[in-house]
């Protein structure tokens, strides 16, 4: 589902160039959750944004659902993102002036799909994360955990097969974090591929595969397969 080959990315911090990602290669298996762990500044969020098409790599290739997204035009890239990639941000990134339901339907609406057709799917996604009752509320009336679940519903709505989550539980208490993780596991069981960037060991414990990143390099699999997967099996 997601294949990164020899991906590099540098930043300029004042006069200094910092190599955030240095020749990383990664391939995920459909129906698995992969956790990427590492200290702050190691490049794991940068790696995820490159995988999600939010920013380009300096070199290397990025393939999502069989398409080299590093070769797509800007408009094609946005369209591919909307159809194949669900992205969950640490700070939710919900549009505050749209209702919960409208936020979940947003990618489909941007694709020009009829609202009536999308409504049921969006409500289904909200039901999956336990937020169906909040569909008419605005994001700023919800708690952080509720907003993150709405963000998750938006990520999964429309049968996207690749879910990228950047510290999805970073701003949540333990109860809300557990709910979000449950929702992610449910998606994986349904066949989605999930890559989670996290500091949190309890999140990594839910993953089928855990990778550790340091100074822009992936050290390799540290844990396989996870206890959670064994439990699922």
């Amino acid at each position, binding site marked *: 589902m997601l294949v990164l080959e020899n991906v590099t990315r540098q930043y300029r911090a004042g006069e200094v160039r910092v190599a955030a990602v240095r020749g990383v290669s990664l391939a995920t298996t459909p129906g698995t959750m992969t956790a990427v762990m590492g200290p702050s500044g190691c490049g794991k*969020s*940068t790696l995820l*944004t490159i995988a999600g098409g*939010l*920013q380009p790599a300096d070199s290397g290739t990025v393939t999502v659902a069989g398409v080299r997204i590093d070769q797509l035009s*800007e*408009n094609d890239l*946005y*369209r591919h*993102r*909307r159809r194949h990639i669900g*992205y969950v*941000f640490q700070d939710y*990134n*919900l*549009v*505050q*002036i*749209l*209702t919960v339901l*409208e*936020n979940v339907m*947003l*990618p489909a*609406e*941007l694709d020009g799909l009829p609202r009536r057709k999308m409504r049921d799917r969006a409500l289904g996604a909200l039901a999956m994360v336990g937020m169906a009752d909040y569909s008419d509320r605005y994001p*700023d009336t919800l708690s952080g955990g509720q907003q993150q679940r709405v963000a998750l519903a*938006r990520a999964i709505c429309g049968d996207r097969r690749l879910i990228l989550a*950047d510290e999805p539980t970073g701003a949540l208490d333990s109860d809300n974090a557990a709910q979000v993780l449950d929702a992610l596991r449910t998606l994986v069981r349904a066949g989605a591929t999930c890559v989670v960037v996290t500091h949190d060991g309890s999140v990594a414990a839910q993953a089928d595969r855990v990778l550790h990143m340091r100074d822009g390099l992936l050290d390799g699999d540290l844990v396989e397969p996870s206890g959670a997967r064994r439990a699922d099996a």
Partner: protein
Amino acid sequence: MSARRVALRLAVRGMRRDRRRTFILLAALVVPLAVAAALSTVRATSILSPETRVEALIGQSQSVVNNGAFVREQGVERALATGSAELSRAAGHSVESYVEVNGYLPAAANGRQVDSFGYGVDLDAAIHRGRFHLLDGRTPRGDREVALSQSVAERLGVGIGDEVGLGPDAAPATVTGVVAIVTDTLRKFVVTTPLAAVRNTPGAASAGGQQELLPGRNSTVLTWHVPVRLDSEALRARGWSVSDRQRAFLLSDNESMVPGDQVNAWILGITVLVVAEIGLVLGAVYAIVVRGNRRELGLLASAGAGPGVRRAVISYQGLLAGVAGVVIAIILGIAAAFLIAPLAAARSFEIWGPVRPDLGALAVLAVLGIATPAVSALVAARGVALDVVAALRDQPEPVRRSRRRGLLVIAGVAPMGIFLLASGAILNTPMLVLVGALSLVCGVGYLLRGLLPALGERAGGLPLLHRIGLRAAARSAPRAAALGTVIASLTLLAGLVLGAMGGLTAEVNRTYIANSPDGTAFIYTTRMPSPAAVNAMTDAFEVDRVVGLGLASPPPPKDLADDGSNFTFWGDFQARNPVSECMSAGGSLSDGSPRTPEQCVAETGFPTQSTPLMVIAPDDLSVLLNRAATQAELAALAQHKVLVLDRRLAPDGTVTVDAPKPDAAQGQGGTISVRLPALVVQERTTYRNLPAVLVTEDALDGIGAVVQPNSAYFYVPAPAGAISPEQEDRARGSLSSDIGTGFFSLEVERGPTAGKVLRSTTVASIALLVLAAATLAFVTVSLATQDMRPDLSALAAAGANRRFRSLLSASHAGQVTLLGVFVGSLGAVVAMPALLAAMDVGWSFWPWLGLFACGLGAVAAAGLAGWFSGAGVKTLLRRAY
């Protein structure tokens, strides 16, 4: 370091950190201030000092004297020679005096002739210093030398060293220079020596032909300039009229004081209103700044900074923006005035001299420019009395809305606006109407703050783009309402300014009576031009045919004139018309005085007092009517009926024409009246020269009339476009070379000059207002879109591409601007009747088109600003991740 200095440093850093916002804020402030500074400076420069105006009138003279009776008695040429001595005799002592000759002095060259005015003065005499401005070359010093005004030189196509012909005999004179009159560079005039002027002015030179000369072409005035003040009583007793310099000052002051003050008041008034409204936007922007800096302000509070210091961080930003804005605006305004003033002077056909800033107006602008952002920031800074803990956690501040205050504002503003509108209309004070209308619009703007959230709630059914755009406006209702109010006020201002200009233009056009259709010409001659001259004139005008229109007259008198010669003119047949009947009805005015032709024209709506019986060749009828003549019209002429070009001349199907009996010229009185069957060929004419009665030469026998042998009209249809000044001058040249100068009048119809000035001013106003509306819309939307950045960023995260974000931002800006344009247009519709009543002028169509252009310009500019602002959000996302 004191707390205030910390606040100042933080304010400066805040402005430097967000350079884009600072730049846009400054632009919003600088644009109107710079325009006002430029306009007030140009206006101040355009006002000539009293001394300059008096010098333009009489140079350095202390007394200006003349004696018409003496000149008539002596004859012009002899009076020129003996006038100074006679003046000394009358004064009882030796008087140093310098003679000036004024009169009609046409100049000709290259087959063209210009009907110029002549000055016969010694330009090198110190007493005339300040009257004429030598633009090029040198002054004329001999009787065969002449200086021309720029206009005459251009129309004749001559320059220094070329030869021109002066007067009826085209006396040769060499052009030595180009001169201008300080207060008027447009005028057609020539300057030569007094003797040359006397010899070449038609009235002074051709004594034998004075009977045939047209009125105004036969008066030559001699004036003596004296460098000392003379005893006017003693001179008056001997028939001399004396004007002194003090009287010139009084005349000059009366002519120029009123318009300048009004223009300044309007410039300052409108600037105050525009800048005050920008203050509303700045207040909304600084409120955004306060919200955006809540966490930093919270950190300051946690470090011990009290509310005063935290407020100072924001209010210093406003103060600094004001100071910088004023400095930039005044520099730009004065620099612009240096560029504009020479162009504006040339456009006004005047010479203004060096640029002079209006220090009073600049001081007002400076105070306004500094106070507006400072007060806006200070008011917004009240919001820093924040919940420190919530600010540090970056939690949103609860929105406080005072419904009661809003209602109070609206309840106060609406009646005040209506009261001011009505007062302005009743007291004939347009400024009151303007302020009243702006009050109403501001009230509606305040109402929008409450309406927008309600509209946002009901936007669920709209397409995504417009739904988000409207919800963004609803969420930032104060900011959106402030922007909408500014746009609405500008639209209103544009509407009222254009409406006023349109009303004035319509009034000028309504009261103007054209001589003939636009671009055509009418010629009246008191000598009959030869067929060759008519052909030459036809060629000069570049038309196929010039229509000759004879004058039907009674048979010539048998007696001879006093000098023993035959009469050259003995009256013609004139059809009775509403104006002549109004005048013959006698005086019915309240003071018992008889009605003037102008009063009767105004009363009856008929364009002229004179409706001659004109003799036309049937072949020429189509040219005169500017359409193919019908069979009925040609048949009527063949049956010796008359054709009338206005039904009011023949209300019962007949026309009554009157002419003085031939002997009436000898003072024996009597009138011949004839009633003629008529065919009305058109219902009404609006032209002064064309409500004529037409007849063929063959029909004159039946009337007992003949064609006047020495006088005739000629109608010249418009060539391609209209008759140009060059064509006019060539025709004038060919005609004067045949029948002489002063024996014809040639009038090309070019519409009312005042109307043209107003039209061009209206176009300039539209351009300026479109520019102002577009600039302010661009500036304010650019600021407003910054407030949408978090949403635009979140949309990008959810997969909205750059095009969608740009469209969204443009849609949001367009919606708010459109709302403002709608409210402003509505205000203009409401206030226009009051304004037109205040100015006592009527409606016209063009201002509404101009208003539409302003609105379109504002919406387009706002849309563009939104588009570009929205496109910039991708950078924010990249920075965020």
